[in-house]
């Protein structure tokens, strides 16, 4: 649910520190609130701890404790209002199709332009609830 200020709550899930850092810096610089998680377990914990579900989740497909679409399904169940953008370094068409079927907003390949992620987050949020 969008806030009037335009600031979004974004959950970034990736085990690569530099990816988390660059996404957080870019999103924070644009005025958004970022929570970070390094794996599946901490991602679910973050969802549980948050006072309200995030607007957008940036989710790495492959995590130390997750290498399938199970975490995406769990996030969709716990926070159905959150838009999930899945990031993958090696996405097969099968993975992409599965993610979209589970309700992911977009599957993007790594590497990506961080600035494009920023606009994609806004676009995803804008399309939420339509």
């Amino acid at each position, binding site marked *: 649910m969008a806030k009037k200020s335009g600031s979004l709550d974004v959950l970034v899930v990736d085990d690569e520190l530099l*990816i988390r*850092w660059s996404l957080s*810096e870019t999103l924070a610089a644009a005025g958004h609130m970022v929570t970070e998680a390094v794996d599946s377990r901490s991602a679910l914990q973050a969802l549980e701890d948050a006072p309200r579900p995030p607007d957008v989740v940036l989710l790495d497909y492959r995590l130390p404790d997750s290498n399938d679409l199970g975490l995406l399904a769990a996030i969709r169940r716990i926070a159905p209002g959150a838009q999930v953008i899945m990031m993958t370094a090696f996405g097969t*068409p099968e993975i992409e199709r599965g993610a979209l079927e589970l309700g992911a907003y977009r599957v993007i390949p*790594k590497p*990506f332009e*961080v600035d494009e992620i920023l606009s994609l987050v806004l676009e995803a949020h804008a399309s939420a609830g339509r």
Partner: protein
Amino acid sequence: MVGSPFTPDNGPARILAAIVESSDDAIFATDPDGIVLTWNRGAARMYGYSAEEIVGRSVTVLIPEDRAVSEIEARRQQIKAGDHVEHDEMVRRTKDGRLIHVSVNISPLRDPDGHIVGAATIARDITEQRRVERALRSSEAHWRSIIQSAVDGIVVINERGIVEAVNPAVERLFGYAEAELVGRNVNVLMPAPYHDEHDAYIAHYLATGQKKIIGIGREVTGLRKDRTTFPVHLSVGEMVIEGGRKFTGILHDLTERVRMETRLREQSALAKLGEMAAVVAHEVKNPLTGIRGALQVIGGRLPAGGKDAAVVKEIIGRLDALNDLMTDMLLFARPPQPKFASLDLVALLRGVADLVRQDPTMKDLRIEVSGSGPPVVGDAELLKIVVQNLILNSAHATQGKGIARVSAAFAAGAYQITVADNGPGVPSEVRDRLFTPFFTTKARGTGLGLSTAKRLIESHGGTIMLDCPPSGGTVVVLQFPVQGV
């Protein structure tokens, strides 16, 4: 002797009579009219008539009914004229009706004044001999047809290694006519070093009796007339015919088997590579994404237009090159399953040409697209990659300043894409390795372009061939069959 007018009255004549009587051959005399005068035991055994039964009767009783009496009449005239009949073969009928083959000599009999008073006939039963000959002939024809029709090559050589016989399979396998091989050293069928060492192999065997291949067989390399080689299984047998020692080589073409084995090995290696590449790609691309992102963030904080910002841009460019390499490797090592759909091949070629033309470094390359054909069933994305790789090769071959002719055709149930350039061509010594992954002739290149093109076209059930015609340049021909959608 019975009823003979030449009754012996002295010693030598008696001895002669005894010889005649004991002969296995039929010996009998007839008068000028063919009436039997004498009849020995051999004749009685051979024809079944005793002397008592036949003397005084015409010899025509021995002639089968279906034979013309003129046959014997002609011979009788011959004898009357004083001629001999030698080794004449004929069919006769025995008393019990059996037909026998006989070889006969007939000589005129003369009285002391030299008048012809009859004929002496010596006949030998050659029925068994004929039967054996016929059996041999039929057996030889039998073996000959087996050897002639054998799929495997059969070569017979003598102790000096000289070819004595080959079967048609050898002609087919090696491209020589039989006449070109018989009389030559068998080493013409072998490449170096075996070509030069074969005589020594035989000599060594003949001297020591040590068998290295005889009775064992092994995989060797055959040399065709056109100087190409092929793998072949050779088994050698030894035989002694008419006092001479000969060796029989049986050659089984292994080309297809070796090709299949190579293919299986390649496939298994590629499958392993695919698994590995997926892991490596993730392990490389993930940190690459992190480094790139962090650099973008840091670079964005640097004063715009400064020296450091330019360096950051360079670094990001390098990272992108690394990422492209990973993507290329992944495409080669783990190509996606083709998604077949109907597409317009010429339009696809034009699309790729336009894409290449957009690259500023390709502005001097002329790309000509031509051809026609029915709609093609294929994976558009994969075919685009293949064609793009080939056009880029043409560009590199011509230093970016030549012509790339791209055409589409449909012939003999297969789609065909040809990419030809007017560059210097590929030296023949490296041509075989062009499809080997990571092999490149370029100063900068991953060496994956052609090997990936090969994999992708093979995923369409097709083939890729590269040729450098004498007229110059390089021609790459892709062919792939019609697919069901």
